[in-house]
């Protein structure tokens, strides 16, 4: 019998009143299988909503599960355990089903071994974490608040630090994840080279550096006394401005004008007289070498009583790591500043504070953000370069 005639005869039997089975048997049979199906369906949902199921993949068991065991959500004085689905699976029926379907992608990843080693997992971790942050930011940390509630917090029982930061947040109803990232697992590790900021800026790098033109470092750039890179001279900071004099292979010779404090070895170079905007840090020998670094007459900064001198230097740097237009840097910095510093209060206008006030203000705040070191340096440099000192000058 062909498939078609099989289906046809199935259909025929369906549309004909049964001759041999009673209506009672059909109703009861349908009713009971319905109950069994519904029970089975919910059991399946529940089984896939247990921690045991989540860690049945070694991808989860060997990484995030082990890390969870070091945290307060694994063992605490109240004895309440937060399990994976408590934090990761929505409780509303629709969103839960959507999340289960989304897991089909995870099954795919499992089958094809997308993160089957620790290295692959760590590489992917930032992306995975960003998905969870986006989800929790959108739903205002709903999963955390299934257990925690601002209204039930006893401020008197909390540390001063917690009260200081959290009471204003409670008034504005800010979601927990804004400040409590990495609460259950290690935060994604970032090497300077893998910063997502650098990745954005790499695309904007100047492809060839021409003599006589100005360029700006977009990442920390190692500099040398000579073109064969044999004698390190120090490091340029982000946004350091250089003027290229000549190119030779992968290296360029450049000159730079900056200021230093006449104190100690003068290794740290600053943007302008009296301004604590770092542009470079030199090796001690380089800083002391008067053939490389020529200093002008000292001037006294009345605010600190320190003498500052303008310095000119001529050194070598690799060609990669520069943009032609500093606004390329500021665009990226501005976006990062707006994203990271607006969680608890509107981010202050950069020109609300002076160049020298920003570093202390910034370092007091940056611990509450998820910025990587490069991003921190970029945003601080951006703030300093757009501070009240600069808005007055221009």
């Amino acid at each position, binding site marked *: 019998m062909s498939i078609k005639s099989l289906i046809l005869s199935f259909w025929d039997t369906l549309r004909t009143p*049964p001759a041999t089975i009673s209506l009672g048997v059909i109703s009861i049979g349908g009713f009971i299988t319905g109950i069994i199906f519904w029970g089975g369906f919910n059991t399946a949902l529940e089984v896939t909503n247990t921690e045991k199921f989540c860690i049945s993949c070694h991808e989860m068991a060997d990484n995030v599960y082990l890390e969870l065991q070091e945290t307060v959500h694994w063992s605490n004085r109240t004895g309440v355990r937060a399990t994976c689905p408590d934090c990761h699976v929505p409780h509303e029926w629709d969103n839960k089903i959507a999340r289960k379907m989304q897991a089909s992608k995870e099954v795919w990843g499992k089958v094809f071994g997308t993160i089957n080693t620790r290295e692959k997992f760590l590489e992917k971790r930032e992306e995975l974490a960003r998905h969870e942050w986006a989800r929790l930011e959108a739903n205002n940390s709903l999963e955390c608040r299934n257990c925690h509630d601002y209204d039930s917090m006893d401020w008197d029982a909390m540390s001063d630090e917690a009260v200081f930061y959290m009471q204003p947040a409670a008034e504005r109803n800010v979601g927990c994840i804004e400040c409590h990232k990495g609460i259950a697992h290690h935060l994604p590790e970032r090497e300077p080279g893998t910063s997502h900021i650098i990745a954005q800026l790499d695309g904007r790098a100047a492809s060839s550096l021409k003599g006589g033109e100005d360029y700006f470092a977009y990442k920390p750039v190692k500099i040398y006394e000579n073109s064969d890179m044999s004698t390190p001279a120090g490091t340029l900071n982000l946004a350091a401005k250089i003027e290229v004099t000549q190119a030779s292979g992968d290296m360029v010779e450049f000159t730079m004008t900056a200021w230093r404090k006449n104190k100690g070895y003068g290794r740290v170079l600053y943007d302008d007289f009296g301004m604590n905007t770092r542009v470079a840090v030199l090796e001690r020998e380089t800083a002391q070498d008067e053939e490389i670094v020529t200093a002008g007459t000292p001037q006294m900064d009345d605010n600190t009583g320190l003498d500052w001198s303008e310095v000119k230097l001529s050194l070598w740097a690799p060609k990669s790591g520069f943009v032609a237009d500093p606004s390329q840097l500021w665009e990226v910095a501005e976006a990062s500043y707006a994203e990271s510093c607006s969680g608890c209060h509107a981010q202050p206008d950069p020109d609300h504070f002076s160049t020298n006030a920003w570093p202390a203000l910034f370092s007091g705040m940056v611990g509450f953000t998820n910025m990587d070191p490069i991003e921190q340096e970029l945003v601080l440099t951006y703030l300093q370069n757009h501070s009240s000192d600069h808005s007055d000058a221009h």
Partner: protein
Amino acid sequence: MPSTTSGNSVGSRRREWTTFLVLTLIVLPALAVAFVGGYGFVLWMSQVINGPPTVDF
């Protein structure tokens, strides 16, 4: 009743039971799962496009 099924009561008994069991044990559960899964899939895709669901407290 169509003429093909009359007369042979053993044959129609078999056929009716098979049809009943196939329908309630296989076809309908499969359809139910497909509908729920399809609904979840549509939601997922809408979340991919519109971003994750938001909740106001």
